[in-house]
């Protein structure tokens, strides 16, 4: 038997009470670690001197895409600091299980709609509520999303994969089992490359690779809402049966920063593919981390699983906390229990979930109601097959959109920006688009635009904790401002002043602000020469110093002239005039 049906196609007499289907239907080297990683800025990890390192070979180290890859970054950083007496070296090992909700109109096995924050139990089909006699029908869109994601993550796509039932009793799991892919998942053996920043100024990006064990299709559960006051549990099944991609990352990471950066990269890939909205705040991307520590060269330690990691920041914090907790525990003669822990956001620590039932036996069993999922490629596609009933891997490969790594490379090549700048542009939601819109409308040099967007613009956003979409400054306004700067109509310090005005959201254009505040540069050479002359006469001592050869004295004179022009003169011009006048 092969892949046959997709989610309910066409109108049917049964479907009145159900919403119509919306989709067409159907061990690397041990890492070293002594201290927890320090705080992350922006979205790519910073490897602070001495804080976080693993020997895992960075991929593509010969690639000239990666600048400034110094040998320093390759050395075990802990040697940079002298170990204190009696201190052991610890290595941490981190693996991740990531659940990404598939972006699809309908659920994995039923025709009910997928929507966040709909009224409770308003998106529940008979199958989702596990009414007796209902059967799963595979949603084609979800399979395509899994194949796309697998291809983007360099996975081997299994031409045949199987579904299994995983049993456990929980109120928000109406069938008493979850349909997943335990034995033979849809995609295996992939890799994810992400970049961590290193070096003194955090200005070098080092590519790291984490292996992807597998990607499996599975159902999401419903949500339980515990009302402790009335000791009630309320169940919302809107989420029950939504398609998930479980992406299993091998334990190739060594600290919270690496894990966070890998997750961020995965998030960008999923969003670029459109296979998941991957919004962690809405639970579309959920991460569990498996963490252990050991002495390098010795067997891996007992691992714990940390759950409830619902933001990238907390993910990094939780992992680093847990690593340090395990080290402390072991150094104090304690032992690590193989347990599930949850991260408490307010306290910033992990706590045992104290699973009373102890070890769960999920009693896996093949799902008898779904035939094996068979995929085809150009060579295996049966002649005359109904395109609605088969999925062609090669066809999906052709439609893959540009991935973030390629976008970054293009940015580097096209605009000559540093690789780490391209990372920042992609990591901030909407920033790349903003940047590209400014570029489109301005005559200014791309480097100038990059600098303004990444330093000034992003700086303002961060300071006020705003998203790009909430910015008071539009790309057009910034473009106009940069044009004024480019044409030397205003000085760069005046430009900063204009930008500050723009941020006030008063609806004025940069041109209006410049003329209102009289920020134009003085273009009148004669007037400027006159001013310089007056300043020199008023400060003979400084002129003397210049003539004696004190270079800083020139700057003082320039400053004085600028002050006299209310900063409206170009310092380069002033310097030229002064030098001429003093015959230097």
């Amino acid at each position, binding site marked *: *038997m092969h892949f*046959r*049906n997709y989610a*309910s*196609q*066409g109108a*049917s*007499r*049964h479907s009145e*009470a159900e919403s119509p289907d919306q989709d067409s239907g159907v061990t690397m080297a041990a890492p070293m670690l002594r201290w927890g990683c320090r705080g992350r800025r922006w979205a790519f990890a910073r490897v602070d001197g001495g804080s976080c390192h693993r020997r895992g070979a960075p991929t593509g180290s010969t690639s000239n895409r990666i600048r400034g890859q110094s040998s320093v970054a390759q050395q075990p950083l802990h040697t940079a600091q002298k170990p204190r007496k009696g201190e052991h070296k610890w290595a941490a090992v981190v693996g991740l299980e990531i659940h990404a909700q598939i972006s699809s109109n309908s659920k994995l096995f039923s025709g009910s709609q997928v929507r966040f924050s709909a009224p409770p139990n308003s998106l529940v089909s*008979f199958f989702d*509520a*596990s*009414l*007796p*006699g*209902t*059967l*799963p*029908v*595979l949603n084609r869109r979800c399979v395509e999303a899994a194949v796309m994601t697998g291809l983007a993550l360099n996975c081997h796509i299994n031409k045949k994969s199987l579904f299994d*039932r995983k*049993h456990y*009793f929980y*109120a928000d799991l*109406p*069938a*008493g*089992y979850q349909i997943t892919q335990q034995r033979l998942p849809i995609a295996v053996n992939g890799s994810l490359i992400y970049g961590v920043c290193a070096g003194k100024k955090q200005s070098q990006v080092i590519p790291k690779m984490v292996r992807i064990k597998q990607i499996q299709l599975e159902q999401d559960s419903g949500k339980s809402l515990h009302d402790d006051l009335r000791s009630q*549990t309320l*169940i919302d099944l809107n989420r029950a049966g939504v398609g998930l991609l479980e992406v299993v990352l091998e334990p190739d990471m060594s600290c919270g920063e690496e894990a966070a950066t890998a997750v961020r990269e995965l998030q960008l890939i999923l969003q670029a593919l459109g296979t998941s909205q991957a919004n962690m705040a809405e639970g579309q991307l959920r991460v569990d981390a498996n963490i252990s520590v050991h002495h390098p060269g010795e067997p891996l330690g007992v691992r714990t699983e940390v759950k409830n990691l619902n933001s990238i920041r907390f993910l990094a914090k939780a992992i680093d906390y847990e690593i340090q907790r395990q080290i402390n525990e072991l150094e104090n003669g304690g032992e690590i229990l193989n347990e599930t822990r949850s991260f408490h956001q307010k306290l910033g620590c992990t706590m045992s979930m104290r699973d009373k039932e102890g070890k769960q*036996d*999920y*009693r*896996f*069993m093949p799902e*008898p*109601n*779904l*035939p094996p999922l068979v995929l085809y490629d150009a060579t295996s596609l049966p002649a005359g097959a109904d395109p609605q009933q088969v999925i062609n891997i090669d066809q999906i490969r052709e439609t893959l959109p540009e991935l973030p790594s390629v976008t970054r490379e293009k940015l580097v090549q096209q605009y000559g920006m540093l690789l780490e700048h391209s990372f920042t542009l992609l990591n901030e939601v909407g920033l790349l688009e903003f940047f590209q819109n400014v570029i489109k409308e301005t005559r200014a040099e791309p480097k100038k635009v990059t600098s303004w967007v990444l330093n000034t613009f992003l700086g303002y956003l961060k300071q006020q904790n705003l998203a790009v979409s909430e910015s008071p400054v539009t790309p057009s306004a910034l473009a106009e401002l940069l044009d004024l700067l480019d044409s030397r109509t205003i000085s760069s310090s005046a430009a900063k002043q204009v930008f500050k005005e723009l941020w006030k959201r008063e609806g004025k254009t940069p041109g209006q602000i410049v003329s209102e505040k009289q920020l134009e540069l003085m273009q009148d050479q004669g007037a400027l020469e006159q001013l310089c002359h007056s300043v020199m006469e008023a400060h003979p001592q400084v002129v003397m110093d210049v003539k004696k050869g004190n270079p800083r004295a020139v700057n003082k004179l320039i400053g004085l002239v600028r002050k006299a022009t209310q900063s409206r003169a170009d310092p380069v011009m002033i310097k030229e005039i002064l030098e001429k006048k003093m015959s230097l």
Partner: protein
Amino acid sequence: MLGRTLREVSAALKQGQITPTELCQKCLSLIKKTKFLNAYITVSEEVALKQAEESEKRYKNGQSLGDLDGIPIAVKDNFSTSGIETTCASNMLKGYIPPYNATVVQKLLDQGALLMGKTNLDEFAMGSGSTDGVFGPVKNPWSYSKQYREKRKQNPHSKNEDSDWLITGGSSGGSAAAVSAFTCYAALGSDTGGSTRNPAAHCGLVGFKPSYGLVSRHGLIPLVNSMDVPGILTRCVDDAAIVLGALAGPDPRDSTTVHDPINKPFMLPSLADVSKLCIGIPKEYLVPELSSEVQSLWSKAADLFESEGAKVIEVSLPHTSYSIVCYHVLCTSEVASNMARFDGLQYGHRCDIDVSTEAMYAATRREGFNDVVRGRILSGNYFLLKENYENYFVKAQKVRRLIANDFVNVFNSGVDVLLTPTTLSEAVPYLEFIKEDNRTRSSQDDIFTQAVNMAGLPAVSIPVALSNQGLPIGLQFIGRAFCDQQLLTVAKWFEKQVEFPVIQLQELMDDCSAVLENEKLASVSLKQ
């Protein structure tokens, strides 16, 4: 009119000899008269009468929907019926009213059939007697037949007639009794290990199990998903073919239905000649427990084919003896899984205990399921434990493959149809039957039938003759996968040769009041 076959009454409806409403009322009145058989759990009188009214309009306007328009049918109470309680004969689902129709039910209704009611069964179809449901056992109409009663009068040992009633077999015993007692013309059963064929054999009916994947399971409350098939119970092979014609075909709601085109409708040619047929007699089916009467009929049937020119050969299905154990492991494992949804949260029974969710689950499931269901859940979960999975479940799956291959090999060797007994013997009295527990009974009674389910093949039980006691005995034909039509064609030829007698319930019908009075007396005396 009630004693006719579906095809005959369909013709009568078309010719206007009777109207759907008249027919419906006659059946409803007979359902009331035979209430003591306990064939129905729910009688959907109002629904049926309304459907009859609509059917009547269609006939008047010359817009009949076909052979099934206006035909009273019954449906086993493990098929979802929209707006009609569906209990699986379990406390767990008492009061559960599904919001949707099973695909097979919907298809019958779309063809104009009248739904008389939901028929009794063993709880969740787990049993072979129709004795283990919360609504009590089903009585075999043959217990009250002239043929059986006369034989019993001759037997000096028999005395207490009324407590000596016979089981129907199961688990679709309610459906079998309903058709056998003329309360409807066809009924849906389900067949996981023989649950349609077994009661058909005991009640003198045609019991057909289609190929797995030919008929949708959507809405059939599962026992074992990988073996369940909706079954058809009728008075003759042609009737089964008519119903199959209405049911067969792919269903977008059941991913295990096949898309390959099947010959429709299932019109069965009358075979004039069986000389090109090869009938296989599996030697492993000759077991010591087989009653001599059944054995003798089996060999007479083989002789009949041979004498009419068919090639009859002994064949071997070498893994047969492992089949029932293998079935037990696979069945209980799926049962453990399928029953997990009955937790009292969304629908069905919920206990009064609310100290914790876990305590609620436990009490609900203890109160909701009988011992048989709980026992199967327990053993199934045992087989699925991580430490046991390889040794039991995986091994059983491998054996299942070997069993399926046995059939493939036999059919590849040129055999068209296999001929076997359906049951070890004729129906036994209830008091006799309950001397053994459900598990023992099931493994005895499913012996000839469950291997077919493991292989997904079509099979049909055909009533052959009456035993010395005046009770029906059936034989089973097994066909190649998706060669359902060929199988039924052979069965039809055989049916014509054996001329199985019609059940004589005249005495029961006349006697009905007496039987009912007796029952009344019994209940009164119990109260005193």
